[in-house]
């Protein structure tokens, strides 16, 4: 039975349509295709509105090394990265604790559920404006605004995870009187891990974007500030250069931090 199945797959491999466009080179090929398409489109468009990839690459290099009035690209990316990381850490810790408590204690959940929904639906921009008005145009206001925006999202994801914890395994810990910290580390956290990773992923994508908006609104540096500056000057190539710098950094974080973390934590799965 097994052999038959195996040989069928092996024999069918060269013709199997499912294997068309698979493998690691596909991703690279598709990105190259996208750049080619862009290059092609830019030939027929106004270069001011849609600069070519080559022009954007030149702008990128100039922003990174050349003389600009407002500081170099890596400084601005660095500022944004700093704000995003601080906001990310606080959001994950705070949202994680709140979500866990809400998920484990029904009464707390009943009481605070309305607050969570309120927080989820509060427009990010409103929180940003209020924080800048209340606390001034500073780092604290920006980071606080981002944290307020992100915490409810982390909380509902972790709450979901905490509610789905298996009582079976908790009973094992309870009957053998395992220490609380050990229970947290070896029973709760591994079960929450997929939820933590999901909210970290979503958080990484969201927090960057909110930070940009708030930088645009009230900070004198950072990627968001530079984007608004280049928008005012109508330098689309610089806008795109910053957009790419930004995307590269996020992809690196995904590849260097998130993926290995996930692989390590899920290695027990079959």
């Amino acid at each position, binding site marked *: 039975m097994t052999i038959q199945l195996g040989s069928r797959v092996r024999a069918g491999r060269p013709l199997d349509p499912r294997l068309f466009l698979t493998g690691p080179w596909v991703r690279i090929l598709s990105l190259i295709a996208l750049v080619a398409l862009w290059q092609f489109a830019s030939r027929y468009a106004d270069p001011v509105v849609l600069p070519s990839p080559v022009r954007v690459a030149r702008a990128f290099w100039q922003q990174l090394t050349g003389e600009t009035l407002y500081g170099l690209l890596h400084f601005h990316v660095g500022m944004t990265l700093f704000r995003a990381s601080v906001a990310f850490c606080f959001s994950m810790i705070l949202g994680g604790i709140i979500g866990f408590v809400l998920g484990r204690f029904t009464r707390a959940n009943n009481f605070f559920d309305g607050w969570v929904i309120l927080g989820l639906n509060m427009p990010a921009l409103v929180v940003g404006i209020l924080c800048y008005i209340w606390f001034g145009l500073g780092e604290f206001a920006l980071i606080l605004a981002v944290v307020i925006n992100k915490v409810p999202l982390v909380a509902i994801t972790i709450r979901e995870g905490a509610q789905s914890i298996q009582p*079976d*395994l908790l*009973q*094992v*810990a*309870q*009957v*053998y*009187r*395992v220490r609380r910290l*050990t229970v947290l580390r*070896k*029973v709760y956290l*591994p079960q929450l891990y997929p939820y933590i990773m999901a909210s970290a992923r979503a958080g990484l994508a969201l927090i960057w974007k909110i930070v940009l908006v708030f930088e645009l609104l009230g900070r004198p540096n950072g990627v968001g500030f530079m984007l608004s500056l280049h928008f005012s000057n109508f330098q689309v190539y610089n806008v795109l250069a910053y957009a790419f710098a930004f995307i590269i950094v996020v992809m690196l974080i995904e590849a260097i931090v998130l993926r290995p973390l996930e692989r390590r*934590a899920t290695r*027990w*799965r*079959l």
Partner: protein
Amino acid sequence: MAAVKVLEVDITRKAFPSPVSAGAETVAIEDLQFHVPEGEFTCILGPSGSGKTTLLQLISGLDRDYDGTISVAGKRPAEGAPVGYMFQSARLMPWLTVIDNVEMIADDVAKANDLPKTLLEQMELGSFLDTFPNRLSGGMQRRVALARAFVNTPKLLLLDEPFISLDAPVALRLRQLLLNLWADQKATIIFVTHDLREAVHLGDRILFMSSSPGRIVLDHGVDLARPRTAESIEVEEYRQRLLRQHPDVLEGVQQMESDAAKGTDALVTSNMG
């Protein structure tokens, strides 16, 4: 010298809120008394729904809501009396390796004596210490759970149909391993089962529980020399004799066993498929 009582149970009433109507209650256990001297292997046999698992949960302290008194080695379950518990399924943490699963619950004394490793080797799992449980067969997972149950040399061990849904040879081997551990550690064991042959094979004494609300209807000391062999004529004859002597009490047992046998067959077939 009078044997020390490791376990004293006197439950007047244990009820659950009824799942059907709000406010109403289902009485699971009523007027149930027994005690167990140190080192005894006690089997508890009863039809499903007779409150066997509930009884173990009360003794272990997992459930503290009942009327009556329970004392394990002189302590109430809530006060932290040391018990081992083996559930119907292995209940291993899938994200911890075999050795980590046992070490997670091992106390300082056990760790100092390297007991987790020793016990797992005794269970013939020495070459699987760093394996994750989902790579092991059902029988091997139970052996890990068995090692875990014994690792802190508990005064009292509670086993809740621990070898259910395993095929016969695997279950037989596990029973032998359990008997070896029991002899080594001189543990006191409460073993819940619905299989009379298993009870006769393993137990010094069999407590028969009635259907809901559960109480003890027969307290029988097994008068058979050890070592016993599960498939021996002696065990089978003893079982038959018990069934003849107490037809009223054991009315349900034969039905249960034939049902269980069917269930096991079904499982064996599905495992092979």
